[in-house]
């Protein structure tokens, strides 16, 4: 047997190919000057230079005129906006529905960071969002704070920022079995508001009992106990008055039983204005849903433009949300503008889309204001923020330039 001695390599020489395609390290050192800088940390500076180094804010220096070599400039600079309930998920596949209580499951593994909607949010000045499991389960798991742009493996700001669940109709919608035997996997779930609330109470009671009796521990009981201890905020969707009341009473019942003090955040609490005393009484925070054309939201809740102002006047911490909506008429900036039309002062509106949600979800050490040491999430505006005539002309996320103001310079105008 003679094997080929002359084996011809007819193969073409290795073609020139793009170099590996590795994600390039983003440039995240910048100088930014704006004629007006709203820090959301209590200051508004008439002219300031913000130095960004390694993705973080290195210095904030009052400066009336821009230095000649400044890289980026704009009329107004604010912190990146944070949507307190961004809702960019893979829908029903982002929450486990084989059980009503799946407290231990994190949203992080169930997201689609490649969804273009995130990039759309970044372009509109929303640099981070609180994202939670959708409310198809009663207690749906753990929420997280995600950046809207930048390398996929660096989007996560903080995981396990809250335990998420719902009170009201959403977890029970469509669960009515009609007549006869259950013919569907989902019909064992609660079919009423009362049933939904019962799952909350049962879960929290059983978790509390399991503290002294490890035999009674169950999947998620550790997470529920972290919530009961107040260590982990509890974000509960409650649109209407009766659902808000139910959530507040749940918190009070847990305290009364000696189980602990829930750090309660009422999400989408459109009718919070109807029971402000209750909210003050228990010290709950409120995340408001997007405004609607009719003033009615999901679950038929009534949500007037004045709601944010009324809550603010009572000292109730509020955050605004566009629910991650990407359309220009539903943006988070517009929500702030509408809240201002309802009487909310500018500074409070700014806080409600920046530092307030950061505080609620425990990431205010990194996000939410223009302060030295915080992540450089910045929005450059061509005019007064939240005015419908103003535009976002520049965006930095963790120091990475997502929208370049130099490309929109022609549109900028003096404040």
């Amino acid at each position: 047997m003679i094997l080929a001695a002359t084996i011809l390599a007819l193969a073409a020489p290795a073609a020139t190919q793009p170099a590996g395609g590795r994600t390039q390290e983003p440039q995240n050192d910048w100088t930014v000057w704006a004629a007006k800088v709203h820090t959301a940390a209590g200051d508004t500076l008439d002219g300031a230079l913000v130095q960004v180094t390694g993705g973080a804010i290195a210095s904030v220096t009052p400066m009336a005129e821009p230095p000649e070599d400044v890289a980026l400039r704009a009329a107004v600079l604010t912190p990146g906006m944070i949507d307190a309930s961004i809702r960019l998920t893979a829908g029903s596949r982002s929450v486990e529905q084989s059980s009503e209580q799946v407290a231990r499951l994190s949203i992080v593994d169930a997201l689609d960071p490649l969804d273009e909607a995130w990039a759309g949010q970044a372009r509109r000045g929303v640099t981070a969002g609180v994202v939670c499991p959708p409310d198809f389960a009663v207690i749906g798991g753990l929420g997280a704070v995600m950046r809207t742009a930048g390398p996929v493996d660096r989007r996560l700001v903080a995981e396990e920022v809250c335990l998420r669940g719902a009170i009201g109709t959403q977890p029970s919608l469509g669960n009515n079995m009609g007549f006869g035997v259950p013919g569907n996997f989902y019909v064992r779930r609660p079919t009423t508001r009362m049933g939904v609330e019962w799952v909350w109470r049962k879960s929290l009671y059983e978790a509390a009992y399991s503290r002294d009796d490890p035999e009674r521990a169950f999947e998620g009981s550790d997470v529920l106990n972290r919530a009961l201890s107040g260590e982990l905020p509890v974000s509960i969707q409650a649109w209407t008055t009766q659902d808000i009341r139910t959530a507040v009473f749940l918190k009070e019942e847990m305290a009364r039983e000696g189980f602990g003090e829930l750090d309660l955040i009422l999400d989408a609490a459109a009718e919070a204005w109807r029971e402000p005393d209750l909210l003050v009484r228990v010290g709950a925070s409120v995340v408001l849903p997007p405004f609607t054309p009719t003033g009615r939201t999901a679950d038929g809740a009534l949500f007037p433009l004045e709601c944010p102002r009324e809550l603010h006047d009572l000292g109730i911490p509020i955050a605004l949300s566009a629910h991650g909506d990407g359309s220009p008429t539903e943006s988070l900036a517009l929500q702030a503008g509408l809240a201002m039309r309802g009487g909310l002062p500018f500074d409070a509106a700014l806080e409600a889309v920046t530092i307030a949600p950061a505080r609620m979800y425990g990431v205010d050490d990194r996000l939410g204001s223009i302060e030295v040491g915080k992540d450089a999430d910045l929005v450059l505006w061509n005019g007064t923020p939240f005015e419908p005539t103003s535009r976002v002309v520049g965006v930095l996320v963790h120091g990475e330039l997502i929208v370049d103001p130099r490309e929109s310079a022609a549109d900028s105008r003096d404040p």
Partner: protein
Amino acid sequence: MRVTLPAPSKPSRTLRAGAAALALTLAVHGAAASDSFAVRGAVVVVAPGQVVENGVVWIENGKVRAVGPDVEVPEGTPVVEHDGYVTPGLVAFGSSDGLEGETFDSTRSMLPAASIADAVNLSHRGFDALCRAGITTVVLSPSVDALAGGSTAVVKTAGNRMLTRDAHFALSFDSAALDRERFPTSYGAAVDELDRLVESGEGRFAAVAGGDLPVLMAVSARHEALRAARWARRHGLRGAVMGGDLTGELADELAAAGLAAVVAPMAPGQPARSLDAMMALNAANVPLALMAGTPAHHPDDLRLTAAMCLREGLARNAAWRMLTAGAARIAGVGGSVGTLAEGRDADLVLWSGDPLELSSTVEAVYVDGVSALGGER
């Protein structure tokens, strides 16, 4: 193509009609003869990057005994003369060809001990279409409806032969695994459950965690591929992701996880972005194989895909690797199929011309040294 007894001569197409008559004769008289013959081709592609002009493949007992330009076959050995290309049979990852009965279990998402081999009818005529397209080896995998569907199997498309019934451990990161009325319904719970099983090393998961059994992770959307790559990397698993038109956009993630990619072939009308994604996999040196199998893909799309990649600048040997040796390696059968090296299975395709030119046709297919289509032996 013609057969000469005994001595080889210059390839010629002039004796085709006569060859047919001779083939009949051989069929009658050759039955008891030695299981040895040779194929001489104008061009023999031995392996990716190894091409021999006027080469001979000597086949004995279903294996390649020798290959090269100067192979001396014993006196009396029949020689099939072919004036086109001789290549190894193509290797692809199939969907459901040859499977009979239900292939998913609507009540259970976890069937880790199941084996798709139990559902295969090796003489199913569904394999014929693959064979006719020059695909001689195909990986069959459990339905993507199962989170853990059990073992994949590697079979020949002719000759009733199964190479292995335990090539990979099939997992599904595809949303299809979530859309049944059973646990899990969410990506989060699916990952959580797989984490738990790999960490606990329950049953078949021990072999997976120990690296003895590669995973084959079904995906469709890009974020599913991302999730699968991250998950496998977290647990240090080896294997491949399978599916998705744009999986290649995550080439860096796959490369970082050390995973291979099995992707859908290009079909007429598919957007350029899919091709760019496939090229990105090549650029990132991610081992690549293609899917075949009805009804989702036309078997000829394998060659179409390789040809399109070639046009985009892919090296010819890389294109071949994707269709043959590379795919065989991902399938875990690189020692048996994918090249015509000595000792490998005698799976040969005789093409009228360069197989990466779409006008070329399959003239004969041999599987394990036996004519499956059109051959004289």
